[in-house]
């Protein structure tokens, strides 16, 4: 089955359906007698609710239910999940805010959940929501990260002093202080990493369907982890998990944002239970800006200590991270991913000190990288800043400090122990690809055209597939065709294709006879889901294990049928054979026999079905070198990315076509943040970037062609040798693009440009540099 073998750029099995408009997204779900829900959101960033009068709304045409915080409370359902277990600076437990699906007496961000109106039509529900009378008493709000921790700042939670949710420390403070004490050079910089939003093309949505006959709840949802959603919902509803079914079809992008349940999920279920009909809620784009969890947003002070030759001695990082108004699942992982700060360098001592604060803004969640791109940005900008300050070549400074392959496994001074990687080799390939040697000629030529040309390199590494488990199942039916059931869930990555490749390659199956199933908790036996660049490693390994189980059992059956010992049987390309006979059996013949107990060895269970759980406490470390070239229009500050080269190491490449797509998409999101994307609030906490008119995202004209090559160094931490690929592009892109911008402007003496480097911001920095 060479055509579908691992490593082939097999086009996706998902795509013929999707290019014909045959996707099945949550808003495509239509159930009989379905009603429509509308969320009434807070117009204030911070306010006390004095009273809510729903009388007029309830009497409005077509209205079936109006739910407020009191109704939520009366239902007796629990709060949405809030992570705990972290600690504050003084060792006391992290602050754990309440998170009801509808608030009752206080709103904490523009977009907070005040009421849920259900009508015969969406229009009627939305009309009725306007009739709800709410008496708000506005309170002072705080939105900017740097302001949230200032003494006297408005408190988001009255009993949470200083707005501090928790703090986290990594590394060795004493060793780091000692390293700084003996340093020849100390390079310092403050970075403001702005807030962005996932802006998935498919807005969030849900359909809740309570079955009064059997008391079971079904939720059609957008998600990354069906089983996780079910567990969270069951907790909120206070019912056994078996009484909740979660179903997801195609998901139109997530990037971390859809990774845990949102308030609308239990609200549609509660409304469905109350009115005895299915209830659909579909978010608008405006609601996506107001209601979606957002990402990044921190202020980070970094210091790098070097000796006179440029060897890194120590790294000190202090970061203030914005949690938004509530603490969301996955958010604390941000601090866990700070290990990325160590980069690919030998730096012997580091200390990281992170404080997470509340503010009157959208809650925060993982967004493609979840701490990795932020950390990569900081360390790789610091290396360039150090090179500039010490008058060293930035590539050679990296080379000097890089961890060599022979030092693996290498325990870094922040959190992680890398198992493998060839950093210098990957960088050398990238330097050649990007023709770095003749860059100065290109810079000079651009100058003649009135353009400032710059080149920027990043070498980043991040943790992927951070432990845990994942389930996979292979079901042969009695005809010999196959269903694959995965615990992971694709939001566009192409899981179906890669897992079919893996299984078809091993078992010699025709992918056209294989059906792929995901995202239905009634079908998936065990699953953790997708996130943190884990699925190729975790679900892929689970399918690998499940395939091996199939081979073992099918070999026993084949041996029985051929009247031989299992040890005499060979299996290759879907055929069982033996040197001791001319007879052969296909795996389909064996599967058909497996469905007939009379054809099986005594005591063998009928059926050719296997499920497997891949369980690991290891992780892997994808890494890569990005080189970006930009040209800046000196008069307008407009940036064009003119060349982009990547050499990645995501271990064994399962499908280069899909890998390219993952890297490209990640780069686009990374460059989007560095160049244009920005969530902004005004001083009162009103969202200023509430539509695609205000929130800029890369369009086809803003992105270049991406040249992507691989230098795979397979990891031994999983049976496939893969490392995560989903976040790598974004991680590498933020620093590479930023370094290129600064390099372009360096002829004017510019040392740094904050993100997003909009034309205005660049133009201003050019003017300031000229003014001296």
């Amino acid at each position, binding site marked *: 089955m060479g055509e579908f073998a691992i490593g082939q750029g097999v086009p996706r099995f998902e795509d013929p359906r999707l*290019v014909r408009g045959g996707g099945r997204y949550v808003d495509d779900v239509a159930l009989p007698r379905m009603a429509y829900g509308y969320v009434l959101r807070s117009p204030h960033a911070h306010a006390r609710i004095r009273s809510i009068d729903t009388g007029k709304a309830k009497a409005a045409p077509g209205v079936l239910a109006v739910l407020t915080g009191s109704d939520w409370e009366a239902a007796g359902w629990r709060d949405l999940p809030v992570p705990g277990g972290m600690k504050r600076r003084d060792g006391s437990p992290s602050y754990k805010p309440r998170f009801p699906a509808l608030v009752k007496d206080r709103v904490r961000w523009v977009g907070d959940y005040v009421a849920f109106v259900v009508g015969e039509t969406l229009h009627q529900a939305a009309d009725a929501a306007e009739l709800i009378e709410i008496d708000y008493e506005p309170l002072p709000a705080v939105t900017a990260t740097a302001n949230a921790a200032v003494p006297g700042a408005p408190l988001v939670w009255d009993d949470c002093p200083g707005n501090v949710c928790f703090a986290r420390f990594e590394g060795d403070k004493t060793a780091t202080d000692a390293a700084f004490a003996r340093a020849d050079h100390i390079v310092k910089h403050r970075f403001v990493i702005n807030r962005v939003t996932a802006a998935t093309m498919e807005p969030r949505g849900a359909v809740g369907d309570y079955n009064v006959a059997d008391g079971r709840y079904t939720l059609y949802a957008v998600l990354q982890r069906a089983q996780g959603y079910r567990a969270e919902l069951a907790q909120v509803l206070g019912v056994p998990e078996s009484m909740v079914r979660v179903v997801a079809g195609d998901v139109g992008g997530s990037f971390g944002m859809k990774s845990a349940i949102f308030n609308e999920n239990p609200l549609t279920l509660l409304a469905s239970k109350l009115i005895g009909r299915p209830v659909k809620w579909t978010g608008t784009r405006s609601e996506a800006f107001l209601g979606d969890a957002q990402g990044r947003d921190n202020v980070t002070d970094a210091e790098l200590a070097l000796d006179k030759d440029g060897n890194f001695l120590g790294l000190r990082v202090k970061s203030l991270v914005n949690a938004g108004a509530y603490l969301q699942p996955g958010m604390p992982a941000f601090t866990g991913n700070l290990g990325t700060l160590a980069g690919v360098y030998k730096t012997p001592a580091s200390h990281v000190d992170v404080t997470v604060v509340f503010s009157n803004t959208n809650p925060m969640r993982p967004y493609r990288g979840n701490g990795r791109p932020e950390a990569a940005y900081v360390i790789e900008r610091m290396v360039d800043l150090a090179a500039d300050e010490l008058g060293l070549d930035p590539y050679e400074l990296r080379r000097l400090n890089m961890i060599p392959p022979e030092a693996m496994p290498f325990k870094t001074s922040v959190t992680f122990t890398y198992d493998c990687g060839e950093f210098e080799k990957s960088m050398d390939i990238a330097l050649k690809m990007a023709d770095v040697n003749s860059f100065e000629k290109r810079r000079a030529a651009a100058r003649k055209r009135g353009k400032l040309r710059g080149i920027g390199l990043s070498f980043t590494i991040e943790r992927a597939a951070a432990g845990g488990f994942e389930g996979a199942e292979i079901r042969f039916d009695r005809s010999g065709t196959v269903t694959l059931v995965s615990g992971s869930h694709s939001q566009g990555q192409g899981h179906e294709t890669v897992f079919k490749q893996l299984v078809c390659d091993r078992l010699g199956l025709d992918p056209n006879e294989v059906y792929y199933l995901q995202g239905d908790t009634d079908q998936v036996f065990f699953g953790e889901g997708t996130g943190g660049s884990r699925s190729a490693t975790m679900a892929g390994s689970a399918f690998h294990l499940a395939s091996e189980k199939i081979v073992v059992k099918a070999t026993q059956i084949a041996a029985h049928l051929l009247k031989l010992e299992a040890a005499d049987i060979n299996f290759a390309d879907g055929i069982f054979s033996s040197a001791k006979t001319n007879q052969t059996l296909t795996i389909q013949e064996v599967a058909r026999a497996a469905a007939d107990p009379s054809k099986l060895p005594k005591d063998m269970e009928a059926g050719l079905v296997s499920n497997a759980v891949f369980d690991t406490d290891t992780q892997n470390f994808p890494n890569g070198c990005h080189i970006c070239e930009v040209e800046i229009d000196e008069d307008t500050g407009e940036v064009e990315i003119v060349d982009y080269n990547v050499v990645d190491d995501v271990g064994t490449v399962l499908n280069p076509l899909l890998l390219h797509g993952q890297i490209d998409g990640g780069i686009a999101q990374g460059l989007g943040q560095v160049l244009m994307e920005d969530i902004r609030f005004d001083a009162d906490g009103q969202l200023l970037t509430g539509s695609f008119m205000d929130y800029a995202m890369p369009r086809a004209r803003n992105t270049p062609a991406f040249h992507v090559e691989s230098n795979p160094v397979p990891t031994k931490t999983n049976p496939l040798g893969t490392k995560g690929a989903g976040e790598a592009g974004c991680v590498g892109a933020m620093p590479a693009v930023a370094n290129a911008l600064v390099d372009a402007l360096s002829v004017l003496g510019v040392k740094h440009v904050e993100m997003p480097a909009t034309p205005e911001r660049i133009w201003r920095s050019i003017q300031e540099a000229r003014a001296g």
Partner: protein
Amino acid sequence: MSLEETLAIELTVNGERVESTVPVRQHLVDFLRTELGLTGSHIGCEHGICGACSVRVDGAVVRGCLMLAVQADGAEVVTIEGLTDSGEIADLQEMFVERNALQCGYCTPGMLITAAELFDIGLPASRENIREFLSGNFCRCTGYHAIVDAVEATLKQRLSR
């Protein structure tokens, strides 16, 4: 129940005559999706910026979220389902698959309909032209590289015929 103001409309959708009574404030894309079950047109922003709801009305690509269903009275509407059935963009669809020019697939129908218009206009097949022409359609997954590849390859294939 409903006090919605409605109007009767008659139009052609994907070659078939359709008569319906629609709320006057219903958008064309909502009508296509909910009344006709043509869910291939997707709603991404409802303010005309993202292009996911693009459909063809009387030969021109329009935003299904910026046009009311009643405005389509008497019009000829073609959606991704109709374009698929007619085979007009079969080569482009195949090329999108071959180049992996989609990931989540949400923007894809709008992207394909827009690219089909590019073919009709007959601009020179430069990557710059393609990028400019597709810049009214957001894609959050691919970074556009593979989309531009697919459109360029299809254009070249057509020109060489």
